């Protein structure tokens, strides 16, 4: 049994503007073990990115953590990241060093006016006592760790001189330069081509094996979730609707939203041309006007027209280790992916 690295309890991150209040993260609780790969899946606007930014305390203005705890465990002591000042020395010592992040778009998250080497050695010298020369050496070391060809040459290049895949490798190198205990990867391969995506996913898998860090993998791509993660959290409208190990989630989903998502994607090697995909009706609700009761009720095919519309379901354990927030979880008949393949 591995130790808990991070525990999020009833996290609430809200955005308040003249248009109203958006509950981007609305009461999320989960636990992350050290060395584990946790997947967070959901469609745009579900709060998955804001949740990860809440952990690092880099939520963009006017977002604010208004409730809950983010307990980070280090050497037997527990630090509540949610209670720290986002500008404090304490969080800055953790951010980038112990918990690092890789973003979706390496072109916008790397500085265009500094070389790759300067940016990585800055991160190194910020957190560790390294001389300039030693930092440069360490930079070359991490660049070769991420499979960068000719790291001695790449170190003096600017981001625009590199391809998308190379930039993403540079960003991963920067994130890993201080050997973090947790790497948060927010859609790290979404902007990349499939063959480049395969390279980056293989790289992350290898690095995790070598360095033993925990990875929080945020994506909308169920394929990436299935291939990369141990445990999965499904988010919808700022809430966690299901939490399960990856096998149970795909083969025995318990929340109607999870079930519907699994069947709305075309599956490589098994779809028939001209066949119909199962559709989730409607679209994601306006974040300023979240439906009452269960936030998914107006798109759910099991909506009972009564309790689902009035009472917000709470997370409960439906099967051992598998949690879902649906009044009818365990009662409704949801198909996992194995059954879908059997049907002609």
């Amino acid at each position: 049994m591995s130790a808990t690295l991070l525990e999020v309890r009833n996290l609430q991150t809200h955005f308040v503007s003249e248009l109203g209040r958006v509950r981007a993260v609305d009461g999320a609780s989960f636990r992350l073990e050290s060395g584990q790969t946790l997947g967070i899946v959901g469609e745009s606007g579900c709060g998955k990115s804001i949740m990860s930014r809440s952990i690092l305390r880099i939520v963009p203005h006017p977002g604010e953590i208004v409730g809950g705890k983010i307990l980070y465990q280090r050497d037997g002591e527990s630090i509540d990241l949610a209670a720290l000042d986002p500008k404090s020395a304490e969080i800055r010592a953790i951010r980038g060093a112990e918990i690092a992040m890789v973003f979706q778009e390496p072109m916008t998250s790397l500085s265009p006016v500094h070389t790759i080497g300067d940016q990585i050695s800055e991160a190194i010298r910020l957190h560790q006592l390294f001389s300039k020369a030693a930092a440069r050496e360490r930079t070359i070391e991490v660049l070769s760790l991420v499979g960068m060809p000719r790291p001695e040459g790449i170190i003096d290049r600017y981001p625009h001189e590199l391809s998308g895949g190379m930039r993403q490798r540079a960003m991963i190198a920067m994130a890993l330069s201080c050997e973090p205990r947790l790497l948060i990867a927010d859609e790290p391969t979404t902007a990349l081509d499939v063959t480049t995506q395969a390279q980056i996913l293989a790289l992350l898998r290898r690095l995790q094996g070598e360095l033993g860090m925990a990875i929080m993998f945020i994506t909308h791509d169920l394929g990436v979730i299935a291939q990369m993660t141990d445990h999965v959290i499904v988010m919808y409208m700022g809430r966690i609707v299901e939490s399960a190990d990856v096998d149970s989630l795909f083969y025995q989903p318990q929340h109607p939203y999870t079930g519907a998502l699994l069947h709305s994607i075309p599956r490589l090697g098994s779809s028939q041309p001209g066949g119909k995909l199962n559709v989730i009706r409607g679209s994601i609700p306006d974040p300023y006007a979240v439906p009452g009761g269960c936030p998914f009720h107006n798109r759910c095919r099991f909506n009972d027209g009564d309790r689902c519309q009035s009472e917000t379901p709470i997370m409960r354990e439906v099967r051992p280790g598998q949690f879902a927030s649906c009044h009818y979880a365990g009662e409704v008949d949801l198909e996992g992916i194995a059954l879908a393949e059997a049907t002609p």
Partner: protein
Amino acid sequence: MANLLEVRSLKKYFPIKRGLFSRAVGQVKAVDGVSFEVRAGETLGLVGESGCGKTTLGRCIVRAYQPTAGEILFGGEGSDKGVTDLARLSGVELRPFRRQIQMIFQDPFGSLNPRMTLLQLIGEPLKVNGVKDGNVIKERVAALLSVVGLRSETMTRYPHAFSGGQRQRIGIARALALNPRLIVCDEPVSALDVSVQAQILNLLGDLQSEFGLTYLFIAHDLSVVEHICDRVAVMYVGKIVEMTETARLYRKPRHPYTEALLSAVPKPDPRRRAAPLVLEGEVADPADPPAGCAFHPRCPYVIERCRSESPALHPNAGGHWVACHRAAELDLQGAN
């Protein structure tokens, strides 16, 4: 089945300009000798990674670009001998054909004018093509909106009031306004969320059977392409490397690049965690493609001949076209 479109040896080169007088110092061979046909009523998929030339090819066909060389033979109405070479027409001569070939774009946020209402957006192609009566336009727009699954009362609203999926429906309604024969769909679902993507794919399927449409479906997502296309052409650095029926291509690919593409897609099944065939290196630069086969620096099956001699696209048994010197001897892995 009759061919609606035949593309022959199509080329589109973009000059690379440098210096004070913008002298051309080189060429990007975005599309470099592509030939294929699209049969009436079918969906032909065009897949490849970014920079392979698939979008440029689509834009040549709708004649947003003037091709550098080659023929685009269109068998639609208004041609004298049944077929017309669109590549040689310009300006006013193209007009009757523009109506018959429409395009759906990737980005539903960038492709609709934010200052026009739906009535203006969808009615504009009608107006341009001579429909003057405002009531007729209104009726037609209302009908088009209901065809794509939007309420006709929404025609007075502006695009910002709609979600990504709804905007894509607006783009589709606009493309349908003039009863086209061929629609070039350029990544129509890649900007959409998965649940909405399924709605749009189903809508495109419904419209095809209702109106007898022919699609050229440009995409990078191989699962989506498998779902919607009858035949698929795979592009790499400006050339088609493989083309055949969808089921055959996915079950038994003959080109090493297709095999790698299929293998690279993360399968949404945690019990099938095979390590993918990871290609080394990156897509070749179309301004400076490698000698011989453009794929040879990344190909795991490369032999000496591949480095010097460029393979031509050859038909094999059953209409399976492959451009690879070793196509006959290799036993490649499909999806599954």
